[in-house]
Structure formats: C-alpha cells, structure tokens
C-alpha cells in the first residue's frame, strides 16, 4: 500500500511546532492537512503565521505551504511528483508577485519592524520640548489611546487634559524633565466623595516610553507602576505593546506647601538671555502685586496682541523666547506654554510645563474616547499660595476654538490659503472629514477594533489564550492538549490508511474482475480511457481485436447487467470470461 508522501511529511513535521508557542494551532492544522480539509488547514496556518519569529520558522512554514499546495492540486489523484513539481513552480513564480506586494505594503506606509521606531514619538509626546527649532508640526492621525469611562460621565473635550510628563528644567532652548522622582505611595484619599471620582479604562498604544497618561490626579491600577508627587505616572518597564490600565482620578488636591527644593526648581531660569522677556515680567510684577492678576494679564496679553496660532511657525533665533514674544508672534502650544512659564518664573511665580494630550473624539458606537497623536498638547501649571498648582492653558487664550472643538474643526475653519501650508496627510484627513458618512464609517471601524482588542487581548497586550493554558498548568495538565492532539493525529493517520483499504473491498466482484482485466489490457495498450464506460471500452476492444469480439461483447453485457441488476448475477461466468480474455491477449 502506498502511503502518500504528504501524509508522511506532515507526521514528521508535527515535531518542530511542539517546541514553538503556536503548537496549539499547528497541530490541528496538520491534522486537517492529512484529513484533506485543506481550507481549515489554511486558516489555522495563517493564524499560526502571526507567531513566526525567526528565519527558521519562515522556512518551516514554507515547507507546510508546499505540502498544502500539493494537497490542493486541482486533480486529487495526481502523483506525488506531479504535485510537488506544480507546488514548487508556483512558489518560484510567486517571488516577483511577492516583491511587488512587499514594495506596495511598504510604500503604503507600513513599517517593516518596530526596531527603528524612535523617530515616531517625535510628533506625539516626548520628554523634551524645543519650541523654537520646529518649523512644521506634522499632525499624525495615528491612535494614541482609547479611553472608556465607567458609568455616565458627562465630559466635554475641553475638560480632558491627559497629563503625561512635567517639564521643569529649562536651558534657554529646551525644556526637559527632571529625573528626580518623589514617589507618592498613598492610595486614593478617602475624603474624596465617590461622585467626584472618575473611573475609566485607558488602552494605550505602544509608546516606547515609560510613563502613562491620566486626568487630574490619577491613580492607575497596574503592576510596577508608580505615582510621582507631581502627578506623573511612571512604569518600571517601557511600553512596547498595547497596554490597558484602569484609573481612578480625583480633582487635583491643593498642595498648600511647596518645599524649598521644588520652589527653586520651578523658578530656575538661565542667567543670561531673553532680556526683553525678563523686562516684561518685571514690568508686570511692578503693575500687579497679586499673582492671579499677573497671570490674567499675561493671558490677556496673548489674547489682545496680534499673536497667531499656527502649525507652521517661523523658526526662532537663539533668544527664542524674546524672538517669539516680540518678533514672530506665531507658534503652537509649545511656544505659548514655554513663553508663559518663562514669564511667570521671571515674575517669581513657580511654574512648569506639562505635556500630554488634550481632548479626543467621542465614539458614539461604543461610547469611548479616541485620542490621536495630533491631540498632543503642552500647557502650564503655576503654583499660587493658598490655592496650590493651577492649570493654565495659554493656547486657549489665543485660539479658544482649538481647545473647544478640537484640532480638526479648527483646521477646517481656516481659509484655503492657510490650509495650503499644511502637510499632505492632514489635508487628506480634512478632506475625508468633509465627505458625508466618512466619520460614521470611521467610528464604526474604530469601535470594532476596540471591541476586538478588549475581547482578544488581556491588559498587558497578550492574546487571551494564555488564560486557558495558565488554568491547565495550575492543574498540572499543561501537556494535556499536546497529548490529546497527538493521539488524535495517530487515530486520523490510521483511519486514513484503513479507509483506503475498505474502499477497495467494497467494490463488487464484477468490478474487481473488470479491473483485473483492465490491468492486463493496459499492458497491451488497450486499457480503459478516462472518459470511457465499460461498454464503450469493450466495444473498442472488439473492433481492435475481432478475434475477441464475441467474448468482449458478451462480457460487456454481463458486466453492465451486474452493475445495474442486483440479484442473479453469475460472477463465476464473469470471472471465467475474464480469465479467457486475459489468456488470449
């Protein structure tokens, strides 16, 4: 008996996947391959391919693909050599198609791997900020995070300031974070009533950074994640894959005392440079003794003077604050936050820059907020005696609609000529937004992605299958699936062999006799053609060999009788005739 090569190869190939993490997909895949359920096998193979992690696994999967193509060959009865030749030629011919496809995928903006991802966060939130050096802010529509609030939280986009980092150090050009951390290990203060607590679930896309985002004063629940007293949430690991964490936020608690070190750090400015700004701060201080009045005056200054909010500002000179405040007068949130913090510090008010995200778009389908990279924002916090840290947003003073209705609405309210200066991706997005129905479709797709993510992945971004294997491991049954599937595989292989033998035994004696005759006739070149019936075959033999005509004629009739009549068949006669014909030809 001939065991198909594909079957043997598949049994041999069972062993490598036992070592990989995708064995629970590969075993059923190979079982289906043996059982000729090719399409189920394909789908399982595709699922397993997402686990490929080395060139070895690529080679392994390619061998399976070749076996699969052999099994899928359009004529099932074809020989192994023919099937293999066809499969290999398909693999070779597919190489040019594959190259074109890979080029298209990469041209469409897909990233080959996440190794060179460092440049990506440049358009989002980073831990340094150099306003004067950027001449164009490319607005990246990539997803930053999704947030779902518990219960009925009635929130407006302008209330959503997702705090990320606090930048306290300034060297005259660049704002950067202070590396000193002051952990706050206290739980959520019990005095805060339940109704003023906000509970929500944040799903953060990979940032390659080690801090998280939250509203106001945020208390996240996640292993190895700590709160800093300034409200920064730091993780001990870098966020390399999508993570999900529940957060409880409370209104910022008034911090009535500011220790010396903190006050010093939040008042520090470089000794030289930006003298015009210093002068201005001194004048304001002389005019307003009260801190609050001084802050109002700064905001009023931004509002009333001809300052412009733009994503494509002119670059500033060395004296970047002076140049911005008194010369170019155009910029985006980073310029305004930087300049305002500088003015306040110069006037003796402790102030710091906060970076994070602002706003988001509400999804009506699932009711979550989608925060994109272009929602990245920078604002100011100032410390007032008796009131603690206050959030101040100078951008809201210049372009209030930018905060109230979001970046996209603000951009689309711009005139045509200002839009020409925007990058291509942003213009495309604005155009799509104006297409009726586009937003509904986008919201639905986003909702589906979110649902998929919630259902399929756990909080640390791993497929939920781990839960099942953990449960089995905890009962000492870690190898059970492997044993079950291995046993099944043996059964299937046995069955495939037995069925083949049974099929032969179930043939009627007449057909078996005819097959015997046909084998003999094949040797003299008179075998049955694929399209011929038995009767036609016999007729052809009669005309080719008139000496056998009588016998063939009779045998043909006997055989067709045996096929269609159920009883009274003289098999002995059929066999006798077959033997006679075999002997004469």
């Amino acid at each position, binding site marked *: 008996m001939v065991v198909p090569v594909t079957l043997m190869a598949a049994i041999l190939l069972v062993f490598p996947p036992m070592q990989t993490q995708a064995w629970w997909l590969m075993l059923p895949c190979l079982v289906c391959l043996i059982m000729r359920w*090719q*399409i189920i096998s*394909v*789908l399982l193979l*595709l*699922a397993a*391919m*997402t*686990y*490929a*992690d*080395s*060139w070895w*696994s*690529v080679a392994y*999967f*390619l061998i399976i*693909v070749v076996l699969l*193509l052999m099994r*899928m*060959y*359009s*004529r099932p009865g074809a020989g192994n050599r023919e099937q293999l030749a*066809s499969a290999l030629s*398909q*693999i070779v*011919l*597919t190489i040019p*198609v*594959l190259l*074109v*496809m*890979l080029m298209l*995928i990469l041209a469409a903006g*897909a*990233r*080959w*791997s*996440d190794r060179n991802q460092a440049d990506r966060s440049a358009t989002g939130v980073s831990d340094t900020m150099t306003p004067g050096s950027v001449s164009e802010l490319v607005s990246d529509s990539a997803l930053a995070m999704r947030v779902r609030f518990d219960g009925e939280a009635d929130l407006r986009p302008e209330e959503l300031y997702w705090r990320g980092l606090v930048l306290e150090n300034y060297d005259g050009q660049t704002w950067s974070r202070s590396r000193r951390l002051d952990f706050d290990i206290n739980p959520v203060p019990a005095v805060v009533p339940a109704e003023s607590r906000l509970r929500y679930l944040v799903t953060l896309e990979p940032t390659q950074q080690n801090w998280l985002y939250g509203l106001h004063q945020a208390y996240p629940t996640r292993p190895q994640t700590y709160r800093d007293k300034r409200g920064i949430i730091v993780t001990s690991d870098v966020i390399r894959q999508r993570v999900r964490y529940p957060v409880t936020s409370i209104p910022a608690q008034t911090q009535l005392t500011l220790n010396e070190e903190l006050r010093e750090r939040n008042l520090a400015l470089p000794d030289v440079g930006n003298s015009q700004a210093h002068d201005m701060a001194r004048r304001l201080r002389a005019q307003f003794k009260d801190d609050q009045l001084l802050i109002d005056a700064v905001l009023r200054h931004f509002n009333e003077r001809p300052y412009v909010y733009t994503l494509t500002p002119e670059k500033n000179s060395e004296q970047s604050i002076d140049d911005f405040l008194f010369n170019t007068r155009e910029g985006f949130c980073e310029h305004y936050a930087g300049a305002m913090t500088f003015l306040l510090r110069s006037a003796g008010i402790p102030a710091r820059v906060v970076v994070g995200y602002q706003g988001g778009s509400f999804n009506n389908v699932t009711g979550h907020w989608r925060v994109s990279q272009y929602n990245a924002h920078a604002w100011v916090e100032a410390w007032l005696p008796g009131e603690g840290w206050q959030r101040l947003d100078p951008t809201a003073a210049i372009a209030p609609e930018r905060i109230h209705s979001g970046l996209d609405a603000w951009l689309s309210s711009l005139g045509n000529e200002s839009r020409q200066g925007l990058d291509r991706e942003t213009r495309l997005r604005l155009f799509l937004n104006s297409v009726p129905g586009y937003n509904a479709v986008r919201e639905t797709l986003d909702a589906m992605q979110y649902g998929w993510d919630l259902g399929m992945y756990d909080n640390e971004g791993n497929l939920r299958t781990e839960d099942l294997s953990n449960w089995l491991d905890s009962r000492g049954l870690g190898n059970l699936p492997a044993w079950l599937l291995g046993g099944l595989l043996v059964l299937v292989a046995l069955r495939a062999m037995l069925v083949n033998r049974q099929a032969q035994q179930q043939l009627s004696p007449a057909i078996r006799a005819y097959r015997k005759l046909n084998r003999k006739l094949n040797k003299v070149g008179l075998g049955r053609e*694929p*399209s011929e019936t038995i009767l036609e075959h016999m007729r052809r033999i009669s*005309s080719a060999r*008139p000496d056998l*005509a009588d016998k063939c*004629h009779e045998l043909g009739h006997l055989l067709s009788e045996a096929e269609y009549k159920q009883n009274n068949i003289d098999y002995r006669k059929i066999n006798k005739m077959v033997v006679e014909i075999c002997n004469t030809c």
Partner: protein
Amino acid sequence: MDSGLSRRSGRIRQHWRHYLAKRQERWLDRRVPSASSLRLGQRSIFILPTIQGALFGFGAAVVLVIAVAERNPFSILLTATLLSLFLLSLVLCYRNLSGLQLAISEESNELPRARCFAGEKAQFSISISPAGLRRSHHDIWIGFNNNELQLQREITGSNSAIHLSVETDRRGVFQAPRMLLRTRYPAGLWQSWSRPHLNMRYLVYPRPAVCAMPERYNDVPESSQGNQLTARQSGVDDFFGLRSYSPGDSRRRIAWQSLARGQGLKTKQFVSEGDAPVMLSMAMFPGRDPEAALSCLSYLVVLLISRGQQKVGLILPGSKEIKPGWGEAHKHKLLQALALWK
C-alpha cells in the same frame, strides 16, 4: 394552504430561473457567438474564486493586515507570500484556458457519420490544441453540461481530438449545445470557465418504435398497390453487398477477404429475387399522430432493409416519393427523409 403557497412560490422561482437562464443565454450569444473554430480569450473566459479560494485570499489579507499592524517582518513575509500565491493562482488559472483553440474536427463530422436515432447520444468530435507549441494546459473538464464533463489531463503539442456525446430527444437537425470548459488548475483557488459554441449539427432520425406491419395495406394508393409482405427465409441466392458487422451476425457471413484487406469487419448480404418491393407510407398507420407514425416507419425501414429481402420505398405527404431501393445508403436516404419531414 401551506402546500399551495409553497407550490406557487416554487412556480415563481422556476419562472424566474427560466427567465434568468434565457437572459444569460442571450447575453452569451452576443458575447461569444457561435463559430466553426475559435480561440479562447478575454471575451470568452470567466473567472471567479472558489469558496476555498475566497477564504484563502480573505484570510491571507486579514492576517497580512494583522502582521503589518504588529510589525512582525517574518509574518509579513509569510502572509504576503500566501496572498501573492492567491493572486498568482488567478493568473495561472486564467492562462490555463487562455489561447486554447477549439475547432470542429474535420474528418469525423461529415454527414455520413453525424447521425443517430432520437434517444441515442449524438457524438461530436472536437479538435483541441494548445495556445502555442510550448504551452501545455492541464486538468480541464470539458463537456456539454455540468453533469457530464470529462477530464483532459493535459493538452500539449499538436492538436488532439476529443469526443463528446449528448443525449438527443427529437428527430430533425440537432444543433450542438454550448460547450463548457472548466478548470481549477493549479490549486483549486480559482475556477475559470468558458462557454464556447461550435457550430456543429447532427441529423437525428425518428426514434424507432416497435410496431407490426399492417396485415393488409391494399388500400394504400398508387405504387404500393399489390405489394405483399410475406415472411420468407432471408435471401441466400445472390450476393448483394457488404454492410458493417453488427453483433449476432453469423460467422459464416463475415467477409474475411475485406477484413484481410484492412477494411474492417463486414457482413455479406444476400438477397433473393422475387420479393416484391414495399412502399412505406404514413397512411399505413391511420389514427396515429404523425410523430408516432414516423417512429413506426423508422422501425420498419431499419427492419426491412436489414433483412435485405425486399426493396423499400417511401412516400410522405408533401414531399417527393423515394423509389424503392436496397442497402445501407438507401436506408439512410429513407431515414433522412423521415427525420426532416415537415
């Protein structure tokens, strides 16, 4: 109540199916007109993914998107390979039919052979040749309808003839239906098919219906008057001619000389003089409808000519009288007249 409703909806469905089939036929007639030889090309080849193919392609596309999102270069490579295999399969499947040349096979469709009785199968012979000398086509199913397709494993090199048969049901000139060529080469992911129509015809004689020769037909007008049919020993007196061998013929009558000359198996025919000619006519079967009468006449023509005792003639209303005669050629002349009457 319920059965009435379902019956009516069944009728509507049938009506619709019929209507759509007619429309499709008309559309095909415009798009792929019938010809005596044709080459399959873009206009005549249709291609769609099979269910397996659709799942394969869709699955590969979805997993490719996942792989791109996860930025895993290895799985991007693998899933892109599967997707490109799917696309390649489209090209190969189309190419497997493209350029194939079909023609009516010259030697075997001449009239003397292209005939049968109604209810028998009409045998058409079609010559099929590959698109080029170096091209080969694999695993193509060919036939006249979906249920009776035969597999051509490989079409390569010079042209080869294939024989297709199709059931006939009525006498007259039978026009070969549209052919169907179908292939799922190489991996069953796509199915391409074509419906070429070759302008082939077949002459279908009336289906012979066993019936007795009327005892008396003296009232038959004109020339058949006075003829008598009496059963006699089959003629042994004079050698009349050869006819092709049919099973059951006596071995003594086989013309071994002609076999030795390589002319195939023939049986010698003898006739005896003295049998009066028979003039067959529809009037011999009064009260039967014309088709039934034609069937009876068909039977009698075959019977009488194969006995070879008498000359047989035929007169049909509205057509020319056929003078009594003998032999195979005369038999076909008579049957043709029966087939084409009115």
